[in-house]
């Protein structure tokens, strides 16, 4: 299998302010968010990062998308280093996270064209891609409605469409179904499966076991910034389900506490 993403020894720390120290009930001035994380993702698979809140999933995805820099380690994304070729990495990926918002003043039509232009897509290619994605997500009926007036689900679908306007090889989604109703969640998960069928690589973070079981070929379980295990679902779960297996691993790591 072709490795399309290889992360090696990724480490990220954040300085804690006095207020954050109080919130974290810690006197440490530095928080290690990701601690020497290594994993690989293969072309055409859906790879899931699984872990509790604060485990380091989002920080890992933000490093892979070059939104933040790694303190140590590197990742090669579609042949490009996140440290030395961030521009080329951004060209190869589509990234979606809840902290990325679309300007509410503009219409889906305008925003799609805008982001496609930034990715260097020709107007002909952009028009064809927009037609496909807008029809797929049902955005075409709202193409000229300002984002501010769209429903939460429609905004999320538009965010997905915009993030992959340039037809990237690797799609990185952070908690893609968070806050969505069941119908929109299904549309999103079905779309991720379709992307896999098209040969795209999807890397997603989630804490929803059923979603991971439904979508992922392989998962990596992160606890306290460390990759505890990374394997196929079958190998990790063996004769049990993912949720049970996750808590076994978690209790072992945390010394029996949940």
């Amino acid at each position, binding site marked *: 299998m072709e490795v399309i993403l290889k992360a090696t020894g990724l480490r990220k720390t954040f300085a804690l302010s006095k207020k954050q120290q109080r919130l974290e009930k810690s006197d440490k001035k530095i928080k290690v968010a990701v601690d020497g994380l290594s994993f690989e993702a293969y072309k055409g698979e859906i790879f899931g990062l699984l872990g509790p809140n604060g485990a380091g999933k989002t920080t890992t995805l933000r490093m892979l998308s070059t939104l933040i820099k790694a303190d140590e380690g590197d990742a090669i994304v579609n042949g490009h280093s996140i440290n030395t070729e961030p521009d080329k990495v*951004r060209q190869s990926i589509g990234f979606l996270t809840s902290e990325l918002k679309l300007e509410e*003043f503009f219409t889906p039509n305008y925003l799609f064209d805008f982001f496609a232009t930034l990715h260097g897509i020709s107007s002909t290619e952009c028009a064809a891609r927009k037609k496909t994605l807008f029809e797929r997500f049902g955005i075409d009926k709202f193409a000229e409605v300002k984002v501010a007036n769209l429903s939460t689900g429609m905004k999320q679908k538009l965010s997905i469409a915009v993030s992959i306007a340039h037809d990237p090889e690797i799609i990185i989604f952070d908690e893609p179904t968070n806050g969505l109703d069941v119908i929109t969640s299904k549309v999103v998960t079905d779309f991720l499966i379709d992307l896999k069928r098209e040969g795209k690589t999807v890397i997603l973070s989630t804490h929803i076991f059923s979603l991971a079981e439904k979508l992922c070929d392989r998962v990596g379980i992160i606890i306290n910034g460390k990759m505890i295990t990374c394997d196929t679902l079958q190998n990790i779960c063996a004769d049990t389900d993912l949720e049970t297996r996750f808590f076994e691993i978690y209790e072992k790591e945390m010394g029996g506490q949940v």
Partner: protein
Amino acid sequence: MKSNILTIMKKELARFFGDKRLVLTTLVIPGLMIYLIYSLMGSGMMSAFAPSEDQIYNVLVTSPSEEFVAAADQLKLEITEADIGDIDSIKQKLRNGEIDLYVVFPEDFDQSIASIRVGEAPDEPLELEMYYSSTEVNSSAAADIVFSYLDGLEESLSNLFNINSGSAQYDVATDEDATGMLFSMLIPMLLIMFLFSGCMAVAPESIAGEKERGTIAALLVTPLKRGDLAIGKILALSIIALLSGASSFVGTLLSLPKLMGGDMVELAGIDAGVYGVTEYLTLLVVMLTTVLVIVAIISIISAYSNSVKEATTYITPLMIVVMLVGLTSMFGNGAPTNPVLYLIPIYNSVQCMNGVFSFSGSLINTVITSVANIAYTAILVVVLKKMFDSEKIMFSK
């Protein structure tokens, strides 16, 4: 121009011009409000300091001169004869505005004037008294009228010498000098303030606002270069700020005759037409480069801030500094000549404008100002690019 810079510019301009409320509050209302406020101020001041043209003044006179009474209609005076009574109650009436003036002629005034006319001067000068209130517009005007009348009468009796009674133009100042003096004191300060306000109206919203709403992160995960983002935003915001500054400037220019009183402007020889194409072009170049510097400074402050509110808080002290720098055009005689002074940002622009309006500027100092402003903008663009690249700044919460 690189296409991504253009894409960012187009988006910023589309965001601005697509929002009618933003266009109204940034481009239309400032100019309109300045025009209305200054015009109202001018009208208010005129009515406060000048009586109406058909005003008849109520004058109380003791021992009135016959000549004076005969001239009363022409002088628009309504004369009431009065004995010297309680001077305190008359003073109170003047203060209350019940009467406009009280004049006390000597008892034998007409007789004494007649004697002077035949060459018999009195032993001592005649003593006249005029009571008036300088804080009452009508009283003050009535005193001026009667004083001029009596002064003319005295001049006709003993004309020893005249000053500037011919038709020559004794004040050698030209219209250019008069306009230059006024405009160079006022306009640079107003312009720099309007430009700063224009920049402040749009830059924090575009950078701190995008950061606050999380929309800038969506741009940062595209292959868009941070430098292109910085240049695109600064150029687009400069265009909007320049239009906003121009709106305020036009409002000021249109209201200036009303603010100063139309007659005063004409009498003082003030005429904006004394400035030619060269002056207006120089002004445009200076304004353009100044806006670039101001927008770049405000953009950096906005990028550092987490919200529009925070950015505005940081920018306010800077606005006061800029205002104080703007005041420097009011001091000194024309623009300074030392080229080194034109390397100081904002001050160089104010003095360049001062030079344009007072006809005392030099080409070399204008060039130094423009080049320095562009160089400062370039440095600030690099700083802004670094800030866009810094996760600590862009994602600090």
